[in-house]
């Protein structure tokens, strides 16, 4: 299997494919081009991106690309399916806790400490007030609503890029910082073997998964951390409180038919935590999930056991 790595969307991207080397090289180029173009469209850290233009249009109709319309519609659908635990309209909360620049910049400036901007939490509008007209690619954000599509867009882009790569390969995978989508099966294999990285030690794997084609995504509170004044922060915000979530789980991995679904449910289940996760998961019977707690123990449902690779 041929593999290439590059950086995009503030994370490491891996493309892997089986087949004719010349064709695969061509496929890698197309997939990389697509990922980089999609990053420019969906980033909230560039004033020129389509997402920033959409956010500035709040209060009036915005003529969006079909890609933006798709992702915003999915976001609205998942917001309902996760009982509001996935909410892309928490951008003001993100900025309030210091995540107002790309993670690379925050990491570079960490020694200076992120500025403290405590203050009252802005009022969160229900996402159902957002209106999408898919026939005309029109989106209407209510005034004062702004979106951060970072996570869901990453999963969605990974799946689209895999579909592009699949035109050049019999079996391929795109991994966007842990959000993975797979098409076909590696030569001579009955499944993809995916290690579950230890959230507390990246050099170790806690277990190994065997996954047929489809998606795997992990959401973690152990990555994307920074200091705001003296307070430790991470990027996973509970929409109910506007604060970074705190419970006994460090990360959740979801196996699902689609990468955006895996990404969204990994985030929502981690926010739900050990006491509410299983009830939430019943809203999406097509997923299986595993959680790692702060003592390194793995928890999961009976359905998730079938994905554990036993040597």
């Amino acid at each position: 299997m041929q593999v290439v790595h590059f950086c995009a969307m503030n994370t490491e991207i891996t493309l892997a494919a089986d087949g004719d080397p010349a064709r695969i090289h061509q496929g890698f180029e197309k997939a990389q081009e697509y990922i980089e173009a999609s990053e420019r469209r969906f980033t909230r850290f560039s004033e020129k991106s389509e997402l920033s233009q959409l956010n500035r249009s709040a209060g009036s109709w915005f003529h969006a690309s079909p890609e933006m319309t798709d992702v915003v519609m999915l976001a609205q659908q998942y917001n309902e399916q996760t009982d509001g635990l996935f909410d892309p309209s928490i951008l003001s909360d993100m900025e309030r806790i210091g995540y107002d620049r790309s993670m690379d910049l925050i990491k570079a400036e960490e020694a200076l400490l992120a500025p403290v901007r405590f203050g009252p939490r802005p009022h969160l509008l229900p996402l159902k007030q957002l209106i999408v007209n898919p026939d005309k690619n029109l989106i209407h954000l209510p005034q004062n609503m702004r979106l951060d599509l970072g996570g869901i867009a990453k999963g969605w882009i990974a799946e689209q890029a895999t579909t592009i790569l699949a035109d050049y390969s019999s079996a391929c995978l795109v991994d966007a910082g842990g959000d993975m989508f797979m098409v076909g099966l590696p030569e001579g294999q009955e499944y993809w073997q995916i290690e579950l990285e230890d959230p507390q030690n990246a050099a170790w794997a806690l277990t190994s998964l065997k996954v047929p084609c489809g998606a795997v995504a992990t959401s973690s509170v152990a990555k994307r951390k920074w200091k705001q004044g003296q307070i430790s922060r991470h990027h996973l915000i509970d929409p109910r409180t506007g604060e970074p979530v705190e419970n006994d789980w460090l990360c959740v991995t979801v196996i699902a038919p689609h990468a955006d679904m895996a990404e969204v449910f990994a985030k929502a289940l981690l926010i739900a935590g050990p006491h509410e996760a299983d009830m939430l998961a019943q809203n999406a019977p097509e997923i299986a999930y595993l959680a790692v707690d702060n003592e390194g123990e793995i928890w999961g449902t009976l359905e998730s056991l079938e994905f554990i690779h036993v040597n």
Partner: protein
Amino acid sequence: MKLYKAFLHFIITLVSVFAFLTGWASLAHSLKPIQPADQKVLAGLQPLPPVGISFASQPANNRIQWIPASPKPRSRSVFATRGS
């Protein structure tokens, strides 16, 4: 009187033998204890977690269960999912 005593001995002996044989027959036809061959019905159950594990983070419902980890150094040739 002698005849009465002999008759009583005979009756007591007869009842004792009958009771013994009834008990023997009951035990011989009772349900047998679980044999090793029958234990396969238990194979679907998950192993209990080791005593050392803290249950502070155990979910409140019983659908989520502890899954044994098999930690090992990451393999470069295998893909990995990690938090982002």
